[in-house]
């Protein structure tokens, strides 16, 4: 039975299903008190019930991450009921409904994806960071995607990919501003985990190589404990990276400004780099 007072307060967005649900359950089992943020009350209550049955502690804080007032109200409610968050997992994500060439995706839908995947983490960071910086501690994890970093087969899911690149850049710029404050920000990708969102992204589910969700929950637990603080501002892949190997060369990674989104030079003497 987890001791609900032994860790701190975590906030997970998109907590009602998919990876957010698994991450919330894993953190609760570790003794974190968890704020479950999502758009729909029903799935949040179901996760709340699971946490409670496991002896953990959580509250449901329904909110749309793209709406400033709702994000603020959710953080306020969480802070009142469990305390201000020490750990924030910006996980809520959206993709366009159907793959198509970018100019055939509905322009408003395209932007709605960017709002969810970029504005959401931006608003949440803006809401929680002042208190973290004031306390001199706190951790913020962005759930990104390799799709923000490299070309995709067929080139599809443009809104999702562009928004995840933007999230990588947000991680980078936040990290620069948080240097020396005691607050850490990291970006990760869970790999291809089978969820409602990913199930039909790349074709028939039984033809995909799915990554087990346990890889991302394990990484979140390590990040929550502070194990990854040396990689502040960087990208770590939960399924493809050997985290201990990365940590062993964290100093070199930071010195080389690696694991950030940069212009790839055509040669070592590319004048732009």
């Amino acid at each position, binding site marked *: 039975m987890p001791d609900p007072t032994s860790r701190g307060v975590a906030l997970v967005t998109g907590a009602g299903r998919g990876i957010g649900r698994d991450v919330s359950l894993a953190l609760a089992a570790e003794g974190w008190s968890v704020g479950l943020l999502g758009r729909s009350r029903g799935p949040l209550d179901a996760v709340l019930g699971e946490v409670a049955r496991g002896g953990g502690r959580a509250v449901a804080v329904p909110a749309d991450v793209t709406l400033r007032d709702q994000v603020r109200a959710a953080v306020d409610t969480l802070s009142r009921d469990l305390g201000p968050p020490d750990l924030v997992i910006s996980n809520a994500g959206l993709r366009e409904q159907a793959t198509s060439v970018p100019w055939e995706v509905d322009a408003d839908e395209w932007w709605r994806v960017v709002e969810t995947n970029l504005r959401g983490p931006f608003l949440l960071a803006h809401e929680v960071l002042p208190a973290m910086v004031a306390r001199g501690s706190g951790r913020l994890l962005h759930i990104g995607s390799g799709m923000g970093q490299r070309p995709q087969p067929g080139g599809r899911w443009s809104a999702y990919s562009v928004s995840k690149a933007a999230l990588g850049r947000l991680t980078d*710029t936040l990290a620069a501003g948080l240097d020396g404050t005691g607050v850490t920000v990291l970006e990760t990708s869970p790999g291809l985990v089978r969820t409602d969102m990913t199930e039909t992204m790349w074709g028939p589910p039984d033809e995909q190589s799915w990554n087990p969700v346990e890889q991302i929950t394990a990484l979140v637990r390590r990040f929550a404990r502070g194990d990854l603080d040396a990689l502040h501002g960087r990208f770590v892949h939960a399924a493809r990276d050997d985290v201990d190997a990365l940590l062993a060369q964290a100093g070199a990674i930071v010195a080389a400004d690696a694991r950030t989104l940069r212009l790839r030079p055509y040669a070592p003497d590319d004048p732009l780099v």
Partner: protein
Amino acid sequence: MTVAVVTGAGRGIGREVARRLARDGRTVVVTARSADQLAQTVALVEADGGTAVAVTADVTDADAVRGVAEIAEALGDVDVLVNNAGVTGDATPFLACDIDAWWRVVEIDLRGPALVAHALLPGMVARGRGWVVNVNSLGGAKELPGTSAYGVAKGALMRLTRFLATETAGTGVVVLDVSPGLVHTAMTDGAAIFAGVPEEDWTSMDVVLDGMALAVSGRLDALSGRFVHVEDDLESLAARADDIVAADTRTLRLRPYGPDDPIG
């Protein structure tokens, strides 16, 4: 006569690019939020003997952008879009930044180019000819002072350019990120993030205009999807385009920590 659409054409680089494209023989549709500034651009184009049509529009307004596209298509075959409208925002520390101002930068610098491309690409693809130039910046691929919405939006724009190039490959349409470098305009001279940049790091407007003209000439087509700077040796860059494309360079990627990095 072919038609070019230039956004943010009421001043600065956009105005000069519109004048250059008109001198090179295109009808130019110039857009900006300020009708007065656009009227001055049109007058300058006409004084050069060219043809310009002003359409007042905010590039973040989807309906207004559709209106621009309709007017442009009615004038002729649109074969050039220069997505130039952009703002830098302030170099404000994150905790002090104004949420609405920060997000507005993202809307103008990312949603704007996406909307205009969305409106004009179907016609270009159907006709099998077109150049989309996204005016971009290395600021999208490095750390900037403050917590920069500009750096976030311009990085995302690089990813969009790369995507659009993949999707338009083989259609006759080319999409490029072109950095004009730092050019003295009302915007850059007033921007805190460029304060203190030494004079030798600024680019002359003539170099910018030659680079833009080259980008829509067909001579850089092999670099579709890539980021180029007007101070690059653009012809030699195009000559090595096969290598650049094969290694997926001159685009935003995760920087690896070494040759053994499993990512990147």
